[in-house]
């Protein structure tokens, strides 16, 4: 009986630690977070969308950014630059064992299908910070698809500010999460989502192709 109790404690400790971490993450200042992503949907038949992700690194000594590609998504055409200077950065995409060999911490156990985009930059000096822009193309049949004549974009967002730009020639017919809507300079429809709460939003957008251009 005592052995069973010990086992229960051993099992529950990591769970408790994870729960504690989640609680702590929720108690960070959401309004001061400045990570945001803009998604540019490609024709839905491709299941692909370009995106760029802006991120500020201010932790002294940090010299790389690791972007973990979500399960079910494939990343291609990664590129990165320092927005403060315009300098282009080298990127590398690592998969499975390559991640382990490169000793890159992805914050979870490395699986054969794990994928990470690694961007290296000069280590942040004390009192300095660096603003990065990471651009990629994602392909994800589940998140982005055609259903009959309608385009469906169904993806959860964890960052406070995200935007989705529809493909040229498409108009929005539904958005489950409140968004502001605007037109880009090239007349594409853009939806901006601001989530002031420290949780995820399950974005669901539907759109149709205009009959006339």
């Amino acid at each position: 009986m005592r052995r069973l109790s010990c086992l229960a404690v051993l099992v529950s400790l990591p769970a408790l630690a994870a729960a504690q971490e989640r609680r702590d993450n929720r108690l960070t200042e959401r309004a001061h977070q400045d990570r945001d992503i803009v998604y540019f949907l490609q024709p839905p038949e491709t299941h692909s969308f370009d995106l760029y992700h802006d991120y500020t690194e201010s932790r002294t000594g940090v010299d790389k950014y690791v972007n973990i590609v979500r399960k079910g998504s494939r990343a291609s055409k990664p590129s990165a630059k320092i927005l403060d200077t315009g300098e282009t950065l080298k990127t590398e995409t690592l998969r499975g064992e390559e991640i382990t060999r490169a000793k890159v911490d992805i914050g979870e156990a490395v699986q054969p299908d794990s994928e990470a985009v690694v961007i290296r930059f000069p280590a942040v000096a004390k009192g300095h910070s660096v603003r990065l822009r990471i651009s990629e193309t994602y392909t994800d049949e589940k998140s982005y698809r055609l259903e009959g004549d309608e385009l469906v974009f169904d993806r959860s967002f964890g960052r406070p500010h995200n935007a989705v730009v529809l493909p040229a020639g498409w108009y929005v017919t539904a958005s489950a999460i409140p968004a502001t809507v605007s037109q880009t300079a090239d007349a594409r429809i853009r939806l901006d989502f601001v989530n002031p709460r420290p949780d995820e939003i399950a974005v669901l957008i539907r759109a149709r192709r205009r009959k006339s251009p």
Partner: protein
Amino acid sequence: MRAMLLAAAVFALGCAAQPAPRAPARPASAAAPAERTSPSAEASTKAKAESDEYTRYELLAPETAQFHILYEVTAMAPGATVFFNPIRKGSAASGERVTDRMTGQDLRFEVVSGQEARASGLPRADLETDYIRIHLPRAVPADGGQVRLLIEKTYKDPKSYFREGEAIVFSRSLGIKRNSVVLPPGYELTSCNVPSQVLSEPDGRITIAFWNTGPDAAPLKLTARRLSP
């Protein structure tokens, strides 16, 4: 006098980064439009002079009616070498400081009239308004580049920050979308009319923080009272 001139920058209203004029005699060429690229992802974003604004108000001792402001803003106009921050007259500010957030370096700035702002890179400057003209440490890079600034000042405004009986009140219309207010040490939050996170600073002070998702300014009013020793 300088403090008066620097008083009350209207953070919510149109700060602007502009390319420096190539020749003072031709100010019209100073306000070159944002550079356009091919129809790529970045070209689809709106051209903006500034972005990513965030303000933190640190309330000082209530009897002073003062609060320290830390205002983060990003200059976005490609090629800009100066950044203009409009000034609202009427209150006293002190302790102004502008920092490059990339390096922590202090930046040079001065107060200029609307007319001078027009002549030095802000062609649509209001002639009735004074501006803080900040010299950027490098030109804003093209294609989405940024220069990130931190503008600090201490502000005295008895209309925004005052006592009401045993309570202290911070009541202010906030046009910036991302804000936080830090209570003085030893105070508890008793009311807040804008849905906000409530957080604790490492030194125990209480912070309220919110992201205004609407198009209008947030008419923030919060009250606090001193905790028993």
